[in-house]
């Protein structure tokens, strides 16, 4: 499976993402610059964390108009997995690929530590290698991860099982309903504030993030074998 790791001016988790795919998962990955106009050669699209365009104006706001984002929309429409982590999540909400928005953390602090997440829905292409209700350790590092949406959106997120990860025992940023990650209605676009790409090796504190990437590969292999 071949992944595109998108690189915006100011991305800084692109190397971690590339390392996770290439070295720990053993799949193909390429860095793809933000003004690229073709993503058709990739099977999965990864939007890494960082501070795209310096987060001037709002987190992720300027990145939504990069050339590559119309390609990301095409990939999402085609049903390819699109994963946005941290700033990538912010970009996906700004671009309208995921509902809601990310606000400043409730306590105004930049939080950087490992948190416990509960897998709320393992019936997605990103979580099929986890068990439902499984609690995993994944690092966070963000100042604006307070997920918010209106009551109507929240009701539809719940009704469609779009809440994929929640913070287990402490909610670091004040997000509504302890939400840490959501998928779109179709289930092929995931946005999450925690960093699974930083939890792929014992040396860096744990491997609980690896199953997320394995899930994507598993789903991709199964769908490609059945169509062959």
């Amino acid at each position, binding site marked *: 499976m071949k992944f595109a790791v998108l690189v915006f001016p100011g991305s800084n988790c692109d190397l971690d993402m590339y390392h996770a795919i290439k070295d720990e998962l053993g799949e193909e990955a390429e860095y793809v610059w933000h003004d690229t106009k073709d993503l058709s050669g990739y099977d999965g699209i990864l939007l890494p964390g960082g501070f795209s365009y310096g987060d001037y*104006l*709002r987190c992720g*706001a*300027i990145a939504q*108009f990069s050339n590559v984002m119309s390609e990301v929309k095409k990939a999402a429409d085609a049903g390819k997995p699109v994963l946005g982590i941290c700033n990538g999540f912010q970009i996906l*909400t*700004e671009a309208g690929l995921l509902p*809601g*928005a990310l*606000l*400043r*953390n*409730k*306590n*105004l602090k930049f939080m950087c530590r490992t948190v416990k997440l509960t897998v709320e829905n393992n019936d997605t292409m990103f979580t099929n290698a986890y068990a439902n209700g499984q609690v995993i350790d994944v690092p966070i590092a963000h100042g604006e991860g*307070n997920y*918010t*949406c*209106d009551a109507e959106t929240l009701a539809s997120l719940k009704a469609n099982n779009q809440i994929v990860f929640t913070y287990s025992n402490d909610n670091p940023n*004040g997000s509504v309903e302890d939400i840490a990650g959501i998928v779109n209605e179709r289930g092929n676009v995931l946005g999450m504030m925690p960093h699974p790409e930083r939890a792929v090796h014992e040396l860096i504190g744990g491997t609980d993030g690896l199953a997320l990437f394995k899930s994507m590969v598993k789903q991709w292999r199964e769908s490609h074998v059945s169509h062959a």
Partner: protein
Amino acid sequence: MKKVKIYVTLRESVLDPQGSAVMGALHTMGYDEIADVRIGKYLELQVDDSERPLDELVKEMCEKLLTNTVIEDYRYDVEEAVRK
């Protein structure tokens, strides 16, 4: 040439943690009469004459990029720009 002054604030329904922190500081200083603080953004645009109506242009820019209408409201004033 016109000068457009745009004020962006968090919607009333959205908690403003920055505003709350500043209100806490003001209360600590003894300004107990402060009932609420909201913090927003101020943008100033210099706009050349255009064929499109200015209101239409400003609204479009505000809703596409300058604000996130999920969490923010905006208002704006238009002035004649003073040429330097």
